[in-house]
């Protein structure tokens, strides 16, 4: 019996849809299976209170690759930005917030020297981010003699590092592996400004500003702001779900078949060769290629089964660090809140609560011991400012990332989610007095909720911590870092693979290239 599909993709997250699209364009018959009722994975818009919708997980777009946008004609498939080039306001209870733009920073308390340092720092870091970004566009090279293409990748990477010039190269080699705290101490004076930068280095990660790797994490974030993609942070009209909606439409236009509400229970194997998938309803769907948009632990342990993997490999998978530490807070508001010192036309920007590096570090310290921060750091947006389609007329919705909320909370989340939600709301109230009275509904998604709703093991947005030991050819693990896996016909295309998460789409794109290439190593 011949297979109905050439390729089955598990999960209709943004990477799955991107991958499907490119594969369909290569002439394959592609089926995408999604367990949830709608496409989107963790890039969705959903109602959390009657008539109030919000981007339920990721809520700002800053890394989506422009090549993908144009290749897949996402704009003609309905992708629109409600706002672009959002500024960051680092809030202060006394109203003296900092405004951080691409090249400049302003704020009453800032010294002239800090402003200059900020500009130089941003320029320098963007030069480094450009190098990082260069690595994003291809598969991570294997460190073997025989693959010419990989050797070229390495050589070209080495060359671009050398071409940066001696000073930059030295600086990159010096700071690349260390923590943002130390780097910020070198030149900056203003604590508030340091914290605003440090915040971006730890957002969504299991790092404090003093944890080595936070420079890498910062560069990763900046990589969305270099090259052709420099207007950085945007807010899609209709929320993040509209990004994946556009991806869906584009994929369908390319001939991809998408079935939602169909969960894959396992990947079918003939010894170590993929032959298809089995759905939770017991249906067997055959295909010679299966691509998993699920995270590596779910893919290998749940769908493939550890017993079908060699021990050394499954040990590596078992060791992937992927416990989420960020929670998501959603508030339905009766009116636009007032933030001290922030004018109402600034409320559409990205606002952060990170008063000092010490504050951030102490928030992080709790999470090391399975406790949530009693004074959390937040990234806040009020998407309804730009996009009234999300809410009833005149109402508003607030969406915030709250850190740190460890997946493995010592007491368990069941009784504590409500407590932590109140802590987060209280923290916002400090900066926006009176906001509490405006709240008509609220929701907090802990990493445990994120795990169950978005089916991400450990509830980590990036499907795995973004650190040097889980980076490039080490991501998610050696042996599966080039999107192919030890099982012939099985590929990975999710955020757990290089270059990682953040609604970038490149994991899906790079994976498709490998699949088209036959997954040769």
């Amino acid at each position, binding site marked *: 019996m011949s297979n109905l599909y050439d390729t089955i993709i598990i999960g209709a997250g943004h990477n799955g849809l991107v991958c499907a699209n490119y594969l369909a364009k290569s002439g394959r018959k592609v089926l995408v299976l999604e367990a949830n009722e709608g496409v989107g994975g963790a890039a969705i818009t959903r109602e959390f209170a009657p008539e109030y919708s919000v981007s339920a997980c990721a809520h700002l777009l800053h890394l989506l690759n422009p090549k993908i946008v144009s290749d897949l004609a996402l704009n003609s498939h309905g992708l629109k930005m409600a706002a672009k080039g959002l500024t960051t306001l680092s809030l202060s209870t006394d109203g003296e917030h900092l405004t951080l733009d691409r090249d400049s920073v302003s704020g009453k308390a800032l010294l002239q020297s800090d402003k200059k340092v900020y500009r130089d720092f941003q320029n320098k870091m963007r030069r480094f981010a450009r190098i990082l970004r260069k690595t994003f566009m291809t598969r991570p090279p294997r*460190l073997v003699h025989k693959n010419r293409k990989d050797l070229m990748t390495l050589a070209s990477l080495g060359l671009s590092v050398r071409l940066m010039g001696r000073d930059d*190269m030295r600086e990159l080699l010096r*700071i690349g*592996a*260390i923590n943002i705290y130390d780097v910020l101490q070198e030149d900056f004076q203003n604590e508030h400004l340091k914290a605003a930068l440090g915040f971006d280095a730890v957002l969504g990660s299991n790092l404090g500003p*003093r944890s*080595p790797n936070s420079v890498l994490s910062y560069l990763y974030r900046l990589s969305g702001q270099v090259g052709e993609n420099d207007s950085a942070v945007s807010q899609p009209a209709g929320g993040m779900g509209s990004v994946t909606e556009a991806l869906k439409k584009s994929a369908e236009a390319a001939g991809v078949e998408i079935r939602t509400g169909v969960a894959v229970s396992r990947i079918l194997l003939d010894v170590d060769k993929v032959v298809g998938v089995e759905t939770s309803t017991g249906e067997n769907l055959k295909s010679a290629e299966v691509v998993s948009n699920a995270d590596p632990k779910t893919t290998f342990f749940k769908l493939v089964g550890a017993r079908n993997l060699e021990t050394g490999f499954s040990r590596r998978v078992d060791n992937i660090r992927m416990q989420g530490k960020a929670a998501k807070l959603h508030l339905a508001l009766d009116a636009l809140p007032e933030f001290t010192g922030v004018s109402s036309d600034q409320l559409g920007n990205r606002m952060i609560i990170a008063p000092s590096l010490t504050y951030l570090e102490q928030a992080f310290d709790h999470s090391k011991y399975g406790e949530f921060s009693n004074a959390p750091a937040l990234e806040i947006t009020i998407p309804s400012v730009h996009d009234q389609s999300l809410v009833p007329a005149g109402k508003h919705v607030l969406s915030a990332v709250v850190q740190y909320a460890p997946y493995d909370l010592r007491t368990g989340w069941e009784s504590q989610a409500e407590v932590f939600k109140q802590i987060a709301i209280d923290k916002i109230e400090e900066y926006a007095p009176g906001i509490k009275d405006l709240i008509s509904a609220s929701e907090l998604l802990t990493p445990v909720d994120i795990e169950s709703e978005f089916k991400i093991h450990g509830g980590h947005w990036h499907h795995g911590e973004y650190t040097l*030991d889980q980076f490039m050819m*080490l991501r998610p693990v050696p042996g599966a870092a080039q999107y192919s896996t030890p099982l012939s016909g099985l590929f990975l295309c999710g955020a757990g693979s290089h270059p990682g998460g953040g609604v970038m789409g490149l994991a899906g794109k790079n994976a498709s290239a490998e699949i088209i290439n036959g997954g040769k190593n």
Partner: protein
Amino acid sequence: MKKYDAIVIGAGHNGLTNAAYLAKSGMDVLVVEKNPWIGGASVSRSLHEGWTYSNCSYVCSLFRPEIYRDLELARHGLQVIPYEGGLTFMQDGDYFGNYSDHERHHRELARHSKRDANAYDRFSADVSRQTRLIRPFLMRTPPDPTSFKPADVMELVHMLKTYWDLGEDILYDTMRFWTMSVGDFLDEYFESDVIKAHMAGSGIIGTALGIYSPGTAYVLLHHYMGDVDGSIGSWGFARGGMGSIAKALAGSFQSFGGEIMTDAGVDKILVKNGETKGVVLENGDEHYADIVVSNLDPKRTFLKIMDENDLPPDVVKKAKNFKIRGSSGKLNISLDGMPTFRGIEKGHELLKADFHFIDSMERMERAYDDWKNGTWSKDPYVDTLIPTQVDPTMAPPGKHMMTVFVQYCPPKVNGEEWTDELRDEFGQTVINQIAEYSPDFKDLILHAEIRTPRELENEVGLTEGNIFQGELTMDQLLFNRPFPGYAQYRGPVKGMYMSGSGTHPGGGVMGAPGVNSAREILSDLSRKNVTPEAFSDE
């Protein structure tokens, strides 16, 4: 005044090693030392009558055997005696013992976890692989990766090839190892908290990072890559204290005609027309030489004894930003007898080595949090030894000397300078922790020297009391040590060199920076290389 061929500032073990090799090549060398004694942090001192303290560094493993052999340190009186044992006391009254005999260690590990007992073999093989890889590079000058000079390119290629040849799998493991935290690394092998806590100590000693800070797996390697008599990872006592190393090095140096001047602190390095000319001492004396080697840490070297005007601005900035935070303290205690410890018989062989009182990873990490928050650890990680059980020369018969290395202890307390009261309070914290496990300990104390980073800095000259002359983080290792562009022992001024632990491969009483630096100086002077090559392990 007489002109020397070279002047070495600081009679620490690296300065003496450096000086010995310069002298061995026939140069006329003067070593100037600010203290009335030599040794720097490799020193034995008698602060309580009848007792000798290794009052800074206290055990020996990393000292390069090639130097030991080549400078005939045995003939100059050095004896290093390996010790075996070690344990971590547990809060529940039990302990985890460290036996050097594989089978006995296996039995002890198995008592805590059968799986861990076997995982230890995997751990040992994996760590040995890394130590084997790093050891040959200890006695080599790091290449400058930004340079196109043939020597740099060749050395870089040599390094890359050494690693590339390992094969893909080991290469990936190596990359992970260098970038991981010691906590995450140990979590990949072990399930027992006390076993992990016992081993994690090597990842933070002298380090301003916590066990879960990435980069600390390397620090563990730093403490595992030494050897005593070829037994890699073993540690030993220098008979008579760590000062014996300095004494033997001095003896060797003097046998080549070298001269040592004590009580001779350097005020400034003399620079004229972009070239070093000698040194001015604090007492105003000037001594001349075209080669000046600073064995001081990079901050002291460039910010204290060199004139900013003599230096390129980038060096001043780099020196200012150089990370050298102190994180350790030390107690040296004279004891009236051997203390009794809870749950283990008196004089048990395990007590002949290092013992510790932190039995969980959480307690280890919390100790770091205290330091981060500006105070000393309230429940510190201590590395305690009673060397007089092995070395009879350091205390009167029947009496004992205890050395207690303490992690963490900050260079300032909540941003304020240390005071004597605070210092004593810090000492009390440590003594109380030990006393919890040893009922008669306090009564046996005859004298205690308490050393915070302040004492380390004031006496030895280590800035902020950092024992490695600079933190061992990725931004300050290999070609980044002390700063990018200056990692080949040459200073920014002609004729000026560095030889201290602030240069590659770092601290721990290795002697390697001293010998590497000497090799570079001899090469610049077109003199014959008289430094030894690293022993091979193929």
